[in-house]
């Protein structure tokens, strides 16, 4: 084989640029911490990475939806508990008012307290979260209970507010005022009328209506609790999915630092050796020894 100086220089330059190119690639992987910087580095890996990244985004959004739904349901639950307590107090008052020994004045006092309770329940029914009424159905910008009438009339609708908590899965986050609160208000109004009429028999007969309203209220609260449980289960599932998606994305796209740094050291060593050997190989010619 005939080798000339020109060929030596060419080989040296070619190998040096090859070394540098490989070094640059590893360097980029180390400094960016990403294994793939262009789709052609790993086309299938890129598609996987994009898909996983997109899945992570999707899950994060569902998690945000779950958190918001959870807040709404928690506030609903608190409001319903408050209403339940008021109803409980109202029932005690009605039982007290049904007592035959009570005077008309006593009943007048009870009537006043019942009126205050009714007012309080309507106020609670008008609770809003971030400017949105909890119990108005989808008419979230309309105060659901008109307190200028007696009993307060419901101005919302019976639509459910739905939130996406997974692909194709929705959850209702609200309890509409007409199912949970209107019966309560109606029952109290009727009891108040009976108390005002000072008629113990009529007062006693209102207890059944109050109990029925309470049952409906409890049913609504139970459904809220069930939905909160469902949301918690969903959140756990989403968190698991998020973790595993991120782990897979990291495996697909992140640089294996230990390996990359080892490779970098190797390339660096090769480069230095090539420079040293090259510098010596291309130097001497016969000319150096002719006189």
């Amino acid at each position, binding site marked *: *084989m*005939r*080798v*000339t*100086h*020109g*060929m030596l220089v*060419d080989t040296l330059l*070619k190998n040096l640029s090859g070394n540098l190119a490989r070094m640059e690639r590893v360097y980029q992987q180390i400094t960016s911490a*990403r294994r*793939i910087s*262009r*789709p*052609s*580095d*790993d*086309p*299938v890996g*890129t*598609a996987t*990475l*994009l*898909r996983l*990244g*997109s899945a992570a*985004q*999707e899950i*994060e*959004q569902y998690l*945000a*939806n779950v958190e*918001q739904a959870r807040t709404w349901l928690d506030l609903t639950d608190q409001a319903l508990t408050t209403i339940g307590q008021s109803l409980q107090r109202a029932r005690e008052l009605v039982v007290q008012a049904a007592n035959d020994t009570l005077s008309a004045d006593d009943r007048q006092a009870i009537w006043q307290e019942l009126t205050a309770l009714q007012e309080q329940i309507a106020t609670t029914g008008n609770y809003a979260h*971030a*400017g*949105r009424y909890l119990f*108005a*159905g*989808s*008419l*979230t*910008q309309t105060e659901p209970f008109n307190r200028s009438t007696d009993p307060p009339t419901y101005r919302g*609708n019976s*639509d459910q*507010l*739905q*939130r*996406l908590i997974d*692909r*194709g899965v*929705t959850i209702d986050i*609200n309890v509409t005022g007409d199912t949970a609160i209107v019966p309560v208000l109606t029952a109290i109004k009727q009891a108040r009328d009976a108390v005002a009429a000072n008629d113990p028999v009529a007062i006693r007969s209102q207890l059944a209506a109050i109990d029925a309203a309470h049952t409906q209220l409890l049913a609504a609260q139970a459904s809220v609790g069930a939905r909160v449980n469902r949301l918690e289960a969903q959140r756990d599932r989403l968190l698991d999915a998020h973790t595993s998606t991120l782990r897979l994305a990291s495996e697909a*796209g992140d640089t294996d630092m230990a390996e990359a740094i080892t490779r970098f050291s190797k390339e660096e060593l090769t480069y230095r050796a090539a420079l040293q050997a090259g510098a010596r190989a291309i130097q001497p*010619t*016969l*000319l150096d020894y*002719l006189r």
Partner: protein
Amino acid sequence: MVFRALETAFRGLMAQQRAVDTANHNIANANTPGFARQRVSLVPSMPYTVPAFNRSGLAGQVGTGVLVASITRVRESVFDLQYRVQSQALGEASTLVDAYAQIEAVFNEPTEAGLGTLLDRFWRAWQAVGNQPEDLAARAALVQDATTLATNLNRMRRQLTELQTDTVTKLTLQVSEVNSIAERLASLNQQIVAALATGQTPNDLMDQRDLLLDKLARFTGATIRPLPNGAVNIYLGGYPLVDQDQWFPLSVQVSGGTASVLWQGTTSPVALERGSLQALLHLHNAVLPRLVQKLEDIRDALAREVNTLHMTGYGLSDLPGPPPGRSFFQVTAGGELEVEPSLVADPQLIAAADAPGEPGNNAIARQIAELRSQLVLNSGTATINDFYNTLVAEVGGASQTAQVTRDNQRALVEAIDRQRQEIMAVSLDEEMANLIKYQQAYGAAARAITAVDEMLDRIINGMGLVGR
């Protein structure tokens, strides 16, 4: 007889001098691209038969010295041929690699700024509106995210179209270079044929021609046919690009979005077969239009699907009655995607609800958010995100294939070139050794002339003077 010895020594002097000249020429051109080292081939000149009546015991033929038979290039044309064939494929692959690097930069994946992330953000923004349909801030954020998505989709489409225009510019430049090479080849053919006809070997002109042929190979799949008179003809698809001292220029034509290379002054396309010109045509006529089409598919699917749902919905301020039928996206006459300007001006008009007057109603927003997982592209087999991811993988795959082909082809071309260099490259050591060899022979020949000179001096000035 003594005068003949003078002539013999003189021939030696001349021949060694030519050899030294050639070694110098080689050294001078040690780094000249395409230069093949030259060798002087020395032969003994015709011997002289000493006349005699009978072939007695006298020595017969007497040597008359040395002649320079020829100065030849040390070059193996088989390797040249292989080098050029593989260069054609290398030229093609390199062009594709460069173009795909630019295309990959347009896609800018995998990054947080790529279209994939922007699509995700768009779908998320719809869910955010779904969570708070009454909230103007969520609606304004949706308009922002949708605008960012549209702007970037438009940017990518525009950049790919610009790349297509750039390929025409490159094509035009390269075709003019091919034309210039063809012109120079025709002129070199003429000079070489003329020189050969007078019995000379135009080594350096032939080197120049070989270098031009090497260069030409990168551009096209030309076939080279040497002629007995020393000229080479070059054919593209059977038609001559160079025919002895004639050459036929090429031109570029773009009509109806299709670029072609034609024989100048005709409408016949040139059969390029290989090389960078072929790669540029492929990029311009097939690869880039296809990518643009795919982006337009995404654009159209987005506009179509989102609008179809959005038109059935109601904005916050819409009155009872049939839905106002507002689009969310519009595609301009120039093919740009943009968010309906009325929605940008008033995000209340975004139709999140499927019934009027229900600010908490998010039915349409949810349905649009769920478009992310609907199979709306590729005749109902892919989601918009899937379609885009596949497109990116496709670009990456094509780019990777081009890189592998380029690397393999480059290794092959380099290996062949190395074989070629082993034969034709100038070795300085070798030339130095030769220089010394010929220098010494030159010195010896000069000394021989001195010897003959002394002999003549003896005869002319010293003879017949006995006893003077």
